[in-house]
């Protein structure tokens, strides 16, 4: 069981800083996902843990030992790459067995391990084929097999499913999940797909512009986003953030946007009258009904289990996600209700949650 620590890890390519002082504690056996849009530094961070990229400053510790100067092999990590990175001139069996061969494992034992693994990955019938003769899903399984066969201390996944079609992606997700449950190897998974991150992770580290914005369980990230960026990045449909000003009257606290006033519950220490904020509500927490803020339906998007409605109000546009089909048309007048506890409020200047 291996824990990983990143201490103020930074990376510069020339004068361009890709990672800013990243601190991350990954517990032994944990499955953590680095989530962010492209260019946020997540893959670079993964490469630094793998030993494929040197950090410019900071320390990386694996099982308490500083590994900055160790090669990937010495770190005993296995990695699954975005484009599978299979060796095109080797058969499936040779691909899977390559790292054992590099470590001088006797051929008989290599064969035995490959056979065992191939059965569990459903690759038994394609062992003598070349990567170009495999489907995308099979190639992906070979890549995972190559990582699994050596029983590493750490698994690193670099957007492993991004080239698969949607249904296969969901299936592979479940397989990786099951694998993690069985083997319980400390894993770092990189993706830009929030749904993927939510569905397989013990914890998620949301990254933005080379910084970790928030680390937490999927629920924490979703229910209590620490920053404006996390709030808008996580969740589909996206949360709409509106400009507002904090106000107080008779001991009750509000956020005002134009003529609209919404009660908020913000801790005393963070509340300041007149503070400029951005606020928003998750679409499923916007209740469409007879009471509350008046608005008009702008856009309707029925998707089956729910209907997404964009509603224009004096305060700005809200997105509501209503179960089933909603019997309204664009232009209809509706009212929306919002619970104070469902309101996410961020400082306009710093973007931090209040």
């Amino acid at each position, binding site marked *: 069981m291996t824990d990983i620590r990143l201490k103020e890890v930074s990376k510069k390519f020339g004068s361009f800083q890709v990672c800013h002082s990243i601190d991350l504690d990954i517990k032994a056996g944990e499955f953590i996902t680095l989530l962010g849009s492209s260019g946020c530094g997540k893959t670079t961070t993964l*490469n630094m843990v*793998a*030993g*494929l990229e040197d950090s410019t400053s900071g320390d990386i510790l694996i099982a308490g030992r500083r590994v900055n100067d160790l*090669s*990937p*092999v010495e770190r005993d*990590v*296995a*990695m699954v*790459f*975005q*484009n599978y*990175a*299979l*060796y*095109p*001139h080797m058969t499936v069996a040779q691909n899977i067995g*390559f*790292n054992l061969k*590099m*470590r001088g494992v006797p051929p008989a034992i290599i064969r035995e391990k490959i056979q065992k693994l191939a059965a569990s990955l459903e690759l038994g019938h394609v062992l003598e084929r070349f990567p170009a003769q495999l489907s995308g899903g099979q190639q992906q399984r070979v890549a995972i097999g*190559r990582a699994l066969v050596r029983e590493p201390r750490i698994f690193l996944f670099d957007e492993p499913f991004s080239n698969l079609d949607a249904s296969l992606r969901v299936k592979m997700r479940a397989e990786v999940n099951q694998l993690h449950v069985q083997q319980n190897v400390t894993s770092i998974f990189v993706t830009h797909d929030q749904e993927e991150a939510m569905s397989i992770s013990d914890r998620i580290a949301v990254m933005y512009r080379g910084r970790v914005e928030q680390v937490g369980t999927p629920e924490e990230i979703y229910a209590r986003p620490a920053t404006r960026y996390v709030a808008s990045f996580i969740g589909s449909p996206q949360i709409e953030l509106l400009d507002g000003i904090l106000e107080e009257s008779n001991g009750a606290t509000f956020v005002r946007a134009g003529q609209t006033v919404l009660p908020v519950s913000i801790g005393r220490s963070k509340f300041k009258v007149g503070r400029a904020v951005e606020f928003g509500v998750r679409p499923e927490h916007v209740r469409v009904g007879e009471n509350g803020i008046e608005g008009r339906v702008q856009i309707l998007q029925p998707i089956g289990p729910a209907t997404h409605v964009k509603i224009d109000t004096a305060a700005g546009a809200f997105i509501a996600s209503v179960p089933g089909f909603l019997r309204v048309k664009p232009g209809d007048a509706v009212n929306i209700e919002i619970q104070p506890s469902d309101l996410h409020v961020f400082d306009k200047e710093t973007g931090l949650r209040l």
Partner: protein
Amino acid sequence: MSFQAYRTGGPAKRIGVYIGLTIFVVWSIAPIVWLVLSSVLEQSALIAQPPDLSPSNFTRENFVAVLASASALGRGVLNSLIVSLFSTALALTLGAPAAYALARLSVPYSNVIGFIILATQMLPGIAIAIPLFLLISYLGLIDSVLTLGVVYLSFNLPIVIWILRGFFLSIPIGIEKAAAVDGAGPLRTLWYVVLPISIPPMGAAAVFAFIEAWNEFFFALILTRQSAQTVPLAIAQFAGQYQTVFGQMMAAAVISVAPVIVIATIFRDQIIRGFADGMMKG
């Protein structure tokens, strides 16, 4: 216009392309046709104006004569084979790791080094001929097949490095990272992963180096006397002081270019692919 028509062009464009290609083919093949014709025609028919191509003038005499005096040509062919294979094999053996280091390892100023390596090819041969001759004769290495091989190696190595470096840069870096994670250092990555997928450009580089060495005349002329003479020199022997036996000279030339043409034809696809891959990235 359909996409198909857009790609193939109208009749006028196609005719233009065919005319251009025909001119190019004639331009490329004419010397070889002339070479072969010269080798099988009587000398009188060959130098007639215009050459007399009537069947009665065709003869095997030239080849018979060349093969009768085969010892000189035979030794030339053997020497050329040794020199060409030696310099080609060594150029690949040394050039591949050098090219890989320049392409992938953190070699300081690797671009500058790459350019300097290429720049050595910009010196005209004549500029280094005299110093090279002096050096080699001082060392007592004149008229040695090995000497010639090493000299050709110095010409071929930069080209091989340049071709392979370009190809190595075009390989997706992912599989090399995968090899690193799998426990292969740079040398083993080169051997087990990079070289096996670099066979086309290696083949192209090998053919190129081989032909260069096989055809080289100038340095062979100044660095050999008798025992290390290569094919081009053996052919030149047919030009005497008072008389040039064109027919025999051409027959000898046909014999000497045959291996090159055969190799180039067999590996045609690989050569083209190899050069295309290698040249894509400079």
